């Protein structure tokens, strides 16, 4: 039981980081950034390519290469997030809701198939030299095994969430973000650069997704072009569960979904994980559409 909880929390930390991207974009633009799961996947591949680059440039070095790959993958995913908004969404801002959503879906398909065609159709191993150290080092706590990687994932997520909270609540950038999400027009009139705030949201969300991507790569040991699809759907469910548009809610929802998923895997069978997520999504929408922490908002159509 404790083991399930630990595994679920580790998995949930990934969903939490990805869900943050969904919820922040929803909060500011009121749209579901369907391509966010693919940015997560791009971050995953960028991490492996980053390790490859380091190895080719100066050889194998555990800590240095991982750190450089992390920085590279965050930068790469952030650039993609920025470009996605710039190319596919900005022109459609304020248009009928259907337009940006269709564009986002198209983008998601393009990105997924691009990686499939350009890199590979099959799964790639995350280089195990870099993952092994983290997955083999483990402690036993009350009969449950907890690996260094799980500790690192939880720690990183906690750190990033704290940083994000500080950024949003305590800095000028955060004020701009919050003002833009409250009222884009008024924020613009107050001298806030709305375009920059929106781009910033995409960059932030994509960076977080890239960190999550690298964590999943190490955790599961394999990456594939369609990894972003399932994770994206679950992270979106997490964002809805916590109350979409609500930042702490996304984190809470992410952990809950992670635990529920491992619980389903342990009790019902791992073949039914996807169905359990969907059942949760429907239940939340029926029983409490605003989510656990979401505030009541009027349905603006």
């Amino acid at each position, binding site marked *: 039981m404790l083991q399930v909880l630990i595994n679920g929390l580790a998995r949930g930390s990934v969903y939490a980081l990805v869900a943050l991207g969904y919820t922040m974009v929803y909060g500011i633009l009121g749209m579901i950034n369907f391509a966010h799961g693919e940015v997560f996947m791009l971050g995953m591949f960028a991490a492996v*390519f980053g390790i490859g680059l380091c*190895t080719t440039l100066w050889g194998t070095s555990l800590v240095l290469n991982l750190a450089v790959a992390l920085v590279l993958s965050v930068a790469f995913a952030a650039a993609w997030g920025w470009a996605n908004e710039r190319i596919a969404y900005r022109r459609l801002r304020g*248009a009928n809701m*259907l337009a940006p959503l269709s564009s986002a879906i*198209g*983008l998601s398909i393009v990105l997924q198939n691009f990686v499939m065609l350009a890199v590979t159709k099959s799964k790639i191993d995350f280089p195990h030299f870099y993952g092994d150290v983290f997955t083999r080092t483990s402690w036993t706590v009350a009969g449950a095994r907890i690996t260094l990687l799980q500790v690192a994932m939880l720690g990183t997520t906690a750190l990033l969430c704290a940083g994000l909270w500080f950024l949003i609540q305590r800095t000028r950038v955060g004020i701009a973000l919050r003002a833009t999400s409250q009222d884009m027009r008024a924020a613009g009139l107050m001298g806030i650069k709305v375009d920059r705030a929106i781009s910033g949201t995409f960059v932030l969300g994509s960076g977080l997704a890239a960190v999550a991507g690298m964590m999943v790569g190490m955790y599961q040991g394999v990456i594939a072009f369609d990894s972003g699809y399932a994770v994206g759907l679950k992270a979106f*469910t997490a964002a809805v569960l916590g109350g979409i548009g609500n930042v702490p809610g996304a984190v809470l929802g992410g952990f809950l979904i992670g635990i529920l998923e491992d619980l389903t895997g342990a009790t019902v069978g791992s073949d039914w994980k996807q169905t359990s997520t969907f059942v949760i*999504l429907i239940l939340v*929408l029926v029983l409490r559409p605003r989510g656990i922490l979401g505030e009541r908002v009027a349905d603006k159509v």
Partner: protein
Amino acid sequence: MKKPSVLAPLLAVVAPVLLVLVLTAPFLWWTLDVDYIGGTVGLAFSPAHAGMFFQGLGPALVLGALVLGGSVLMRRKGVKLPSLPVPLRHRLNHRLRAFKDRPWALPALMPVLWLPALFLGPKGLSQGTFAALYIILATGLNITVGMAGILVLGYSAFLGIGAYTFAILQQWLPLPWFAALPLGFAISAALGWLVALPSLRLRGDYFALVSLGFAEALREILRNGGEITGGDKGISISLAHRIVGIGPFSSQQVAYMAAIALALLSVAAIERLYRSRLGRAWVAIREDEIAAGAMGIPVVRMKLLAFALSAGLAGMAGVLFSGFTVFVDPSVCTFEESVLVLAMVILGGLGSIPGAVVGALLLYLVPTWLRDWFPALQDYRLLIFGMILVATMLVNPQGLLGSRRHRLELEEGKA
């Protein structure tokens, strides 16, 4: 205000292209050099790898550019299609209007469209059958996405429900395929109603994700269904229940004629609905849900009805599909299929019935024909559909044959 520079439009095109080229470069120009034993990985610069990608993408890009370029040209003022001599045009217009005002006259076209069945080969018949099936799917999805303005991402789930309804029931009941058509419609529509009931009350974009989740969950259920659904292996339709030849017609000819008949009937029925109180209610909801509600339209019920109808049509298509392919497995309800049909609706023009038909024909037939010349195109199919979705929304949101009213609405609020 700065004066708009001459370079601005050029920059608007060149800058994103450059951006995409830079951002895609790492995955294109370098390949991974995996050292399995050491567990590390290196990078190798490989222009040949990028060359292969572009070689495959080339014909696909040309296809996409043609479709989009054509649609933009048709929209631009001043560029008109080569015009026919005036008297001929008048008569043609007159004829077309006769169909436009009397959609129930459409089924009269049936014998004309049945004619090719006599001289098409097996390949042509199968393509014709699938084209008709896609027309049913595209016009069906068009009700929800185009008319009522609700995005659906898991439409193929209902194709799967129809196909599996038939496949499962025919194991126990003496159920010929034509008797299963209304059954597939009813069960699929009922399930669509149930799925939509909790989620359609909310904002429309939630529903997009719910429908996607439903399709994913359904596929999982089908795969894990054991005896009942046949798991990954699927179910084959028994000899007595699949589409068989009648009289002088082969089974393929019968399938083709049935598909054409169903497609024509669906199009005619939907065209009728579109002009009825129901259709006007859907359009009103699409344009302003709150205002429509204030005018006394039962918004939730109308949306449910639209979705159930869409789902029912897909279910019917599913029965025909499994009767024709004589076999179903969980791959009928993939995300790929949903996206393909969505791309047909959006490319053709949201809310436009002729648009859905044209979109279905274009996106099914053209790739199928081109596949003979460019086998690689098959792999690039989805990439192109995704590009078409994005580009249509950015460049030409009303699609090929979109209604003018809908165009105004799509552009409203854009500065």
